[in-house]
């Protein structure tokens, strides 16, 4: 599915990723953990093509296709989805309008028919109910005045409706209480499947109690410095990142 090899990237003239390599096969959930400033968010933005994140070396492919050559919307149409750490507020655009515009843009890019308004509303209603989102909320401007937990739930709702193949969750647990975390994790877990893969980026092990990873990678100093099974997350929780930071320095 996703293959990242020797990736170097600079932001504001400073090298943040320094030879990052990572392989996430289809059907698996991989966690990337690391201290603040290790390059976790940079990795998510480089993979989704945000302006200002310049790749200087290395490759990133999705099913063999060069991701780095594609625009952000082309990557989205191929199934790359980023759940933002801080979802944007979009004044004046009802959540339903935003999501439907995105869905139909992706479908058009893939040469598929657009979804009709009634079919879309039915889909949105269904997915919102599963995430315990009040449907009325979807008529309001996206994320404007929403709480942190509501914003994260809206991210998962978009994910559920857009049905991406490769999911990147950037600090999805931040700002969530336990109940919201359960609902959000339930939404993410519902998307697990043999044709999908996920990259769960997190600072804390807590989220991984709910979204159980197949592999855990430690990101420090712009590189993956250690990889292991789920037990690695617990070890990090107990012992901290210090020894990896020293190794990376």
């Amino acid at each position: 599915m996703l293959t990242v090899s020797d990736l170097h990237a600079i932001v504001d003239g400073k090298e943040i990723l320094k030879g990052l390599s990572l392989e996430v096969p289809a059907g698996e959930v991989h966690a990337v953990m690391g201290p603040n400033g290790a390059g976790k968010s940079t990795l998510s933005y480089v993979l989704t093509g945000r302006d200002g994140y310049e790749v200087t070396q290395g490759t990133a492919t999705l099913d063999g296709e060069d991701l780095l050559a594609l625009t952000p919307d082309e990557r989205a149409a191929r199934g790359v989805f980023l759940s933002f750490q801080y979802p944007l507020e979009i004044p004046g655009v009802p959540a339903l309008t935003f999501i439907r515009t995105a869905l139909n843009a992706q479908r058009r890019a893939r040469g598929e028919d657009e979804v009709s308004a009634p079919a879309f509303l039915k889909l949105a209603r269904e997915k919102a109910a599963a995430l315990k989102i009040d449907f009325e909320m979807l008529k309001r401007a996206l994320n404007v005045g929403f709480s942190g937990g509501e914003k994260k739930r809206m991210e998962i709702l978009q994910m559920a409706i857009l049905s991406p193949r490769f999911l990147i969750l950037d600090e999805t647990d931040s700002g969530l209480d336990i109940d919201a975390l359960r609902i959000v994790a339930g939404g993410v877990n519902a998307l697990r499947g043999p044709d999908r893969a996920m990259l769960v980026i997190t600072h804390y092990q807590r989220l991984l109690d709910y979204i159980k990873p197949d592999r855990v990678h430690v990101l420090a100093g712009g590189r993956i410095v250690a990889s292991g099974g789920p037990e690695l997350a617990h070890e990090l929780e107990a012992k901290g990142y210090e020894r990896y930071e020293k190794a990376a320095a």
Partner: protein
Amino acid sequence: MSLAAAIRDRDVAELPGKRDEDWRWTDLRGLIRALPEPSAAFSGELGDGPFAALAARAITVVNGRGDATVEVPAGEEADVVLRFVSRGDGAHATAARIVLGPGARLRLFESYEGEGGYLAQATLTVTLAEGARLERVVLAVDSGDGVSVSEADVTLAPGSHLAQTVLTSGGRRQRLETRVAHPGGHARLRLDGVYVLAEKRHADLTTVVAHGGVDGVTEQLTKGVVRDQARGVFQGRIVVAEGADRTDAKMGHHALILSDRAEVDAKPELEIYADDVACAHGNTVGALDEDALFYGRQRGMTEAQARALLTQAFVGEVIERIDHAEAREVARAWAAERLRD
């Protein structure tokens, strides 16, 4: 200095220009070297105006010809389409009179439409008696070669209500001006504007509100989007006279500049000589939020689609304030057409 006088006297020296403080951003003196010939009568087919289906009664003024008088007697209601149409390269001026009796109600759907390199001026005198209510929706779709100025002088009475929205795509040089004498006395005024400008078009939305009595309400929101080498001008002045206490006035102007060569000039002014007033103004000019653009693109929208969605939402805030549902729909479609991907 006025365009109406310049056209009447065929004298460029009477054109307003840079040296007039109120016209420094919409310089007609510097633009027009010689006044064109007076416009000839136009007898060709005009086609439907933008508000064609909205009212049974339509008044059409073509090249300054036609009687634009609307009188709504006390207590009566009316819907009127008022079209100012320019054709050709001549100069013409016209005067219109809108009179609402006590408790009368008028929905006025006014348009400025043009083809050619004309020089057009319209003066509107609008009078609302006590308790009258006017909803005025103005859509200006002038030609890119036309120069057009509309000047409305509005007098409100206590307890009256004017809700106005002016929408424009500009002209070679264009100004849509509204001056309101506000008596207070629980009269309510909403003065909104939207400009969406491309190419080398210019639009100037100028408003002056003079609060002369206690308990007046004014609410103003103007939004603009400019691209290419277009230029938007917003001048909003609210004067609260001595003794016009408990005036409640809000003014907002917000613009998006989508290219390096586009320009917005804004001058919001509050002059307050009374006590115990609630006045606020906000003015922002900036670019489209890059983070929001990336958010839309990450979800699959092309850059053009994301831009269209965000800019339509930006001006949509003003359009949603239009009370009349069909006029609001005309405004929405107009904005979508100009801001589409």
